[in-house]
């Protein structure tokens, strides 16, 4: 059994494929590719594969991680090409490699998005105000109900640039098996300030990281 890790992008119309649907979609993609996928050896054998992180419906990504196993070794380029030949529009394998780190090593994910507004100076001011607050309390829905969380210590702003019609941001948030913060939490907190009205667009996951800012691979 050969363990394989594929990095793929999910853009365009493919961003409307929900996580549940993505599972079914990959199963069929594997079957179309004719790759020697490894099946579990249980009462109900099924191909084994898993996604490192779920991606919210409507988000694009350039760094999704898919792990699966093959019955026989083959060149990574060939695996990539055979999958790409049968992938849906908007989904593309960028890289196939060995599984270096465990999924549990993931600590952060990076997102880029664009906040379009009429008065971008005012919006930029709102963002600076929000980030200077001692705490940013948001209500987060969990399986156990709604709880209040302070996301202030977790938000890392990587860049924040003003253009004519928008403020474009890149932020990092906790991700992985422990805590997952969705960028909409930050965006909603900004909206709840009641400042300049804006629309959040082009939300895209741009990176998955481990401890010490190391790119997950």
């Amino acid at each position, binding site marked *: 059994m050969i363990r394989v890790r594929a990095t793929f992008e999910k853009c365009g*119309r493919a961003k*409307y494929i929900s996580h549940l649907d993505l599972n079914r979609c990959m199963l069929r993609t594997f079957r179309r590719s004719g790759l020697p996928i490894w099946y579990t050896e249980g009462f109900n054998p099924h191909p084994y594969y898993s996604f490192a992180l779920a991606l919210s*419906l409507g988000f694009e990504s350039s760094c999704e991680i898919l792990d699966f196993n093959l019955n026989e070794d083959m060149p990574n380029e060939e695996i990539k090409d055979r999958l790409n030949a049968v992938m849906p529009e908007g989904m593309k394998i960028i890289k196939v490699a060995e599984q270096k780190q465990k999924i549990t090593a993931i600590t952060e994910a990076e997102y880029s998005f664009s906040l379009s507004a009429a008065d971008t100076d005012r919006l930029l001011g709102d963002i600076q105000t929000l980030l200077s607050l001692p705490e940013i309390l948001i209500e987060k829905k969990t399986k156990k109900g709604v709880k209040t969380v302070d996301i202030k210590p977790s938000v890392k702003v990587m860049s924040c640039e003003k253009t004519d019609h928008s403020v474009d941001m890149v932020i990092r948030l906790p991700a992985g098996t422990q805590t997952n913060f969705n960028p909409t939490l930050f965006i909603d907190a900004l909206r709840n300030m009641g400042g300049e009205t804006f629309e959040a667009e082009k939300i895209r996951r741009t990176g998955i990281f481990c401890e010490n800012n190391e790119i997950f691979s």
Partner: protein
Amino acid sequence: MLKDLIEKHLLEAQKPSRYIGGEVGSVIKDKSKVDVRFAFCFPDTYDIGMSHLGMKILYSLTNERENYWCERCFAPGEDFEAVMRENNIPLYALESLDPIKDFDFIGFTMQYELSYTNVLNMLDLAGIPIFAADRTQKLTQIVVAGGPCVCNPEPLADFFDIFILGEGEEVNLELMDLYAEMRKQGASRDEFLRSAAHIEGVYVPKFYHFMYKEDGTIDRLEVSDGAPEVVHKRIITDFDKVFYPDNFVVPFTEIVQDRASVEVLRGCIRGCRFCQAGFIYRPFREKHTDTICKEVKCLCENTGYDEVSLASLSTSDHSEIDPMLTALLDYTVSERINLSLPSLRVDNFSESLLEKIKKVRKSGLTFAAEGGTQRLRDVINKNVSEEEIMNTCRIAFEGGYSSVKLYFMMGLPTETDEDIKGIAELANRIIDLYYSIENRPKGRGVQISISCATFVPKPFTPFQFEPQDTREMIEHKQKLLLDTVKTKKIKVSYHNPEVSMLEVILAKGDRRLCKAVYTAWQKGCKFDSWDEYFNFGKWTEAFAECGIDTSFYANRRFEYDEIMPWDHLDYYVSKEFLIRENKTAHKSITTPNCRLRCSGCGVNKKVGRECF
């Protein structure tokens, strides 16, 4: 661009992937190189419409032609419809995301009567005039319909330019060819429709004018514009060689029939007298085992589906059923593909067949017994004896099954209280059988589910002349059945009789019903086949406002010599035959299946040879 507007609001919809296309297997073309654009519309939601095999066939067939582009279009769910109306998003096709009002053909498949109001709603959402008479004189936006319901399309006649009768594989392309040619010549809409009326299978309703008698029945039909007096349905003669898609559009979201599907036979030899499909799809034709295996393999490889089903009205009537299943199972088992086999009949269910099926099928057994007593089963020509039902149940129980689902109809012609009690008695005897079997599943009780539908007489069946039971009669029979069932081992479920009451009106109705369909839609009726939307009260108001006496269509016997609203449409099953079968039914005499003896329905005259 419409795409941007759609995307701006798409996440406001539930299951947005239904509204954006981009699925594997969908066909994208360069529209500047396309001559004719066809919007194939299914008048229900994506999840249901995407399961329809006819659409898959005609979609692929049309797109094989480089200069024709067929795209898909479905009724949006209520949530997204509201978003579309609020933001002025016209109904669009899923491949190009272009509005369907700009298409050459807008084609609907009419699979059930309760989808009629959805057609009106979709036309409205598309910004296409709902009445054919209100559309442009230019040669564009031709609204057509096919499918089983168009065997009596009169309640829809005012809304469509063309109905296509019978099988579409040839006639659709002929119609598009004619369109492309005539548009090049600068023809008008009417000139095109006049020419189209001469293609076999094409019915242009506006050239047919009904005159009525004082008692409301049809007096005569006048045909204008040189259209043919009788329109014949289209039949594919060489079914083994007919086009079959080598790929399906594979949806992201789950749909009702989420699997590959191969049509193994068309038509049915059985002649159950209530069954419209059994008559309008004649003659019986089948594909060779080799063809079926090839198509199964090809579809599974191209789609990546791990499940395939065999589609037909009665798969076990295939003359090569045993070798076919053996060959298919060889392939599917080795490729870890599930083979699903709907439409298996009780009477030719052999032990060896069951053994094979058991390998792949874990679900329960379902039998359509339809009638509770042998007398009634003889009336409806459901040639299944109690002995056969018992025999099959025995094999199934010995094979480890402990639940059986039985389908019945209520309100069948000549039905009495005895027949209704017979349903419960039959179920009781199956329970007794279960406990008499030594090697029955250990430690498990038996569960019999009885599902009762209300009988709907349909055109082109021997029961087309029959009235439907009134609401009082149906309610009496439902209560009687519930009172007769005395054990928890039997579960009884019903279909809502009001649904069947509406179905019969639309199935047997004439052109005067168009305004009622329109009025019902205006009152908000849509998705009538969905329990949560069905509103019989609004329909009743609509009929009343249009001065329509529903019992005239639903509860009146249509005389043998009466002109039916569908008599000018020829499905090759002769009216003489239907009358003969109706009389035989009333004498409780059965008619053997077509393979045993030809009953002279008339279809072989068209085929030009014996069917068997």
